[in-house]
Structure formats: C-alpha cells, structure tokens
C-alpha cells in the first residue's frame, strides 16, 4: 500500500482503504455466518423445504452463535439463553460405578423443543434410556425425530387370556355379511 504516494490522491486512497477494509470485514463475517449455518444445520435445510403453513422455521440450535442472523427472529420460541447440549441430560450419573435405579434427567431446551430422558441402571450398567419428553408438536420436530428417535418396537402376535371386558376390532357388520353374501350369490348365477 505504501507504493501509493501520489499527493493529490492521498485523501482519496485513505477513503478507499477504509472502504476496502470495512467491506472485507463485512464479507468475512457474512461468509462465516453462512458457513456456520450450513455446517451446523443439515436438519435445518430439510426444515426449510417442508411446506408447513407459517411460522415453523427451525431454530436449529446454532442460531445463538450468529446474533445477526435474521431468521432467528422467525423461530417460534427460541430461548437462546438455554444453550446446553442435549446429551448432557443423561449425564447426572456418569461416574464410573453406576448405582442401580432409575434416574430422571432435567428438562433441556434444545431450541426446537424440550427433551427429557430417564435412564434405568441395572447391575451397574445402563439398561434402558427412555424419552419422557421430546419435541413432537411441530412438523419440523416430527421430521427430525422420525430419523433420530429409537422408538417403534416389534413382537410376534400371540394369543392371550380372553379375560376381558370389551374387544376392540375392525367393524363387524351385518351389512358386510349381507353384501358379501349378495355378491357371492350374484356370481353363482
């Protein structure tokens, strides 16, 4: 820069320098903010593709790190103060020797909703972890949870004792029988 020594334009180059410097700072910040958003919210990008009606723009956890980002104001209830990692909720008993019992973690705000887990310890090991609360009220949360939650369980059906008051089953109707009989007779012609 010291090469620019023409007296007449000394004022001009000074201004140019300021402009260049401030532009560089602004661009660097924008680039950083975009980079942060893209890397931290792969889930957030699917959320924006979801054609939900209205205000369910996902806060995607990282918005607290980018104070200038406008989208953060769209987030329904981004309690940006609670910036805790979700995994820490089970950490109340991370000492080496677990004591047997059931431990309930605190309710953690993960920006897109509340998460609370309960861990069951048997023989000094974690035998089971249940979600007592997880975000399921918004479509974006549901989409995220559909991938993230270890949930549906399976079993082979088995006959049980018939000692029941009521039976739930698909509709048993006389019409159904009559219609079926009708079509059976029709085909018998």
């Amino acid at each position: 820069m010291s090469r620019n020594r023409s007296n007449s334009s000394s004022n001009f180059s000074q201004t140019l320098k300021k402009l260049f410097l401030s532009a560089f700072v602004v661009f660097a910040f924008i680039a950083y903010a975009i980079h942060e958003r893209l890397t931290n919210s792969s889930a957030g990008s699917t959320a924006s593709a979801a054609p939900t009606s209205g205000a369910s723009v996902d806060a995607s956890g990282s918005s607290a790190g980018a104070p200038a980002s406008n989208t953060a104001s769209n987030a329904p209830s981004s309690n940006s103060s609670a910036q805790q990692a979700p995994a820490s909720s089970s950490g109340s008993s991370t000492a080496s020797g677990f004591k047997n019992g059931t431990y309930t973690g605190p309710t953690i705000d993960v920006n897109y909703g509340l998460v609370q887990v309960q861990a069951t310890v048997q023989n000094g090991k974690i035998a089971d972890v249940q979600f007592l609360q997880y975000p399921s009220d918004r479509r974006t949360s549901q989409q995220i949870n559909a991938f993230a939650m270890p949930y549906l369980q399976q079993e082979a059906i088995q006959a049980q004792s018939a000692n029941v008051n009521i039976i739930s089953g698909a509709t048993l109707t006389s019409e159904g029988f009559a219609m079926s009989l009708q079509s059976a007779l029709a085909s018998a012609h």
Partner: protein
Amino acid sequence: MGMPVTLEVVDAAADDDSLLAEVFDYFQYVDDKFSTYKDTSEISRLNRGELKFANASQDMKLIFELAEQTRRESNGYFDIHHKDLIDPSGIVKGWAIYNAAEILRKKGFENFYVDAGGDIQACGKNAQGEKWRVGIRNPFNMDEIVKVLSVSDCGVATSGTYVRGQHIYNPLNPGQEITDIMSLTVIGPDVYEADRFATAAFAMGRSGIDFIEVLPGFEGYMIDRDKQATYTTGFARFVLNE
C-alpha cells in the same frame, strides 16, 4: 352403519331401562341420518342431490367440518369423498360413541363403557373396581385376543380390513389396496380422536404407525400380514401384565 352396540354401566343407580333406551335411541338417530345404506338417510339424499348442503342439518354440517379438519391433520389421508360420493362413516362412528358416552356422563355416571363395532369409550372402572380390560382381536382368528389393555377414561379404536373386507382405501392412491397391514389399534384421549386417527393412519399403510408415534397423546398397535406387531413408544404402559 348397522353394527352391534354394547354398553355397560357399573354405577349402582343405572338399573333404569329408560337410560339405556336414551343411548340406543341416539345411535338410531345417528344411523337414520348418516347411514349410506339407507335410502332415506340425510347423507343418501345429499349424495343423490335431493338435498343441498346449505339446507343440511347442523349435525351434518358439523360432521363435514370435523372430516375436513381430520383431512388436514392427516395430510390428506382421511377423506370422506370417494368416487363422487360422500361416506362420512369414518368419522361418524367415533363421534356418535363419544356423544353417547357424554349422555351417560351428564347423568352423573362415572364407570361405564360404550362400544360400537369394536370402537370403545371406556370411563372409570369395571365391576371389579379395576381399569377396563380391552382385548385386541386377532385379525387372523376372530375368536382370539392377542393383547389385553388396561384402560380408563380414554378411547380405543381399531381399523382393519379383516371383517368387512377392504373398506378403507388410500385417498391419495385410490386404486391401490392396503394389503400389507391387517389392523391398527389406536388408544387416544377419547374414542372420537382414536377412531378418526385410526382410520387415517390405516390408510397410510405401514407408515401409519409412524404417524401415530409422533401424534402427542396417542399410542398404537399395528399388526401386519406376517403376524408381526409394531407398537409405539408409550403403548406398553397400557398393556395388562398378569
């Protein structure tokens, strides 16, 4: 709709036959109005174009409103419009059972159930002072129970293909039959809610149980054609362990 209606009232003051008559009269009223099997019903007159929707009864308009709400809440999987005709039975049944239970509740009864065609509103306790025991029927063997639930103050509804044959279709793909799942039982806050979401989720096929999983306040038990059951995270707490 023509289905068996059963109710049991445990409370001591329930010996009055007129009480039962009132509940059954209500089901008769609903059937006369909404049955697509009856030529004289209001829904049949609507479907034939003899009655304009603007002139329909309050209950008819309400049912259309509830059906539209359910269509939206199920991403289009619940739809009373089928082949240019309207069949609201997917929502009327649960609604009618709920209203029948309300008749009993308003008279001060607390311990009873109302069951119409396998969809149930269970309130309070049974005659033994326990929660109501609700069996889930085996879709492969009508005489068998495959699960016993213990419920109180909630609704249980099952959608399936096994009794009437195919009577639920996927509105987003009407030509395709739902053949990979046999029945889907839903436990919900009341029978109206359980019934409408059981019907909608069944129309989704295998992914219906995922829909129930993320629906707050609902649990489900799906039986597929390989006799495998898939159930939601909170379902087990309703299962009776003896």
